[in-house]
């Protein structure tokens, strides 16, 4: 009897520790606490070039994450990239509809993300509305190309 009781206690402890470990992995290690996926409202933004922006990349405002990129597609009519941004519900009716969307890179090697600069409009972004003011990602080769081109022009000007 005593032996059975110890077995029961030990098995119970084992399973409890196992579930605590699973809980730890989901709460502390993964993004469950900050994910809120599936909630929020969708806003479209059209970019000429999104660089290497990925689905699930953060959408930030003043550096604070307010949502995530939920879908990226290509519009074959206008040759633009259509990026669907999922903004968290608590920022509903809080972001003006003339907000400016830019694609930034976090650090030199970091991932790309969408930064929003608030506008001054009194109407707010709602589900399905579109951000019309956008700025494409900076592609390193293009910048270097522009730099070389302007240098060459300068050189030509001196001669």
């Amino acid at each position, binding site marked *: 009897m005593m032996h059975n009781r110890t077995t029961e206690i030990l*098995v119970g402890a084992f399973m409890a520790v196992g579930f605590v470990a699973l809980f730890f992995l*989901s709460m502390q290690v993964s993004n469950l606490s900050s994910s809120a996926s599936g909630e929020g409202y969708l806003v479209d933004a059209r970019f000429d070039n999104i660089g290497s922006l990925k689905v699930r990349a953060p959408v930030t405002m003043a550096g604070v994450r307010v949502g995530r990129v939920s879908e990226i597609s290509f519009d074959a009519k206008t040759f633009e990239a259509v990026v669907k941004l999922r903004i968290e519900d608590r920022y509903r009716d809080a972001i003006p509809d003339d907000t400016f969307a830019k694609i930034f890179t976090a650090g030199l090697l970091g991932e790309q993300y969408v930064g929003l600069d608030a506008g001054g409009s009194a109407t707010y972004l709602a589900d399905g509305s579109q951000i019309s003011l956008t700025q494409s990602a900076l592609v390193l080769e293009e910048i270097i190309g522009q730099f070389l081109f302007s240098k060459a022009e300068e050189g030509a000007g001196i001669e």
Partner: protein
Amino acid sequence: MLNQLAALGRIGIGTLQQLGRGHLLLLHILSGVPALFGRPRLLLNQIFAVGVLSLLIVAISGTFVGMVLGLQGYYILSQFGAEQTLGVMVAASLVRELGPVVTALLFAGRAGSALTAEIGLMKATEQLSGLEMMAVNPVKRILTPRFLAGFISMPLLAAIFSALGVIGGYFVGVGLLGVDDGAFWSQMQAKIDLHEDVFNGVIKSLVFGLVCTWIALFQGYSALPTSEGVSRATTRTVVHSSFAVLGLDFILTALMFGE
């Protein structure tokens, strides 16, 4: 020439027979699961033997694997000035790969071999036949609780392995090497996805638990009833389980994380 052909055929037929017997045994084992709910104590005792007694080796290995990951990761990442992502590296490699795989290998060595030896000896000493004489189905009475215990214990053990590994990596990275505490956790939380990483790791460990226990039980149940037969079956359990785990891991990873 014909003899060689016949030998090849014999090998092929033998392998298929083994596979067929294994699957029939698995069906037989699974058919005993409903009856087990009436006798949870059988399951409890097996979870003790399979899970609780494997806890120590899994916990120690997990902690040390995490600590080594912390050290090695730090040395490599610091060359790029990216020590901050140490948490991501440690957690991703543990949750996705090392947790399920290393736990399954340890599980095969610690619990699988014990299961095979136990059942093989039961067979060699004719205890299984004895049960059958008493009209007790030995598969349902002996194998089913062990199978279910392995299936339940394995994901829990893998979760404990990963969790302790992350803590070990935290201890080395933040405690000893001076990675920033907040960056360690926040980068980890930003990059590790609950469904993509954690749940897929749990699915992996469920599959490995099923396969390892199944192989162990099948080897024990089909062992030759001699001392040599039992010892060979035990060896085969560890070897086959390791192969199965490593092979399946590749397939599962390709299915889960390949886009």
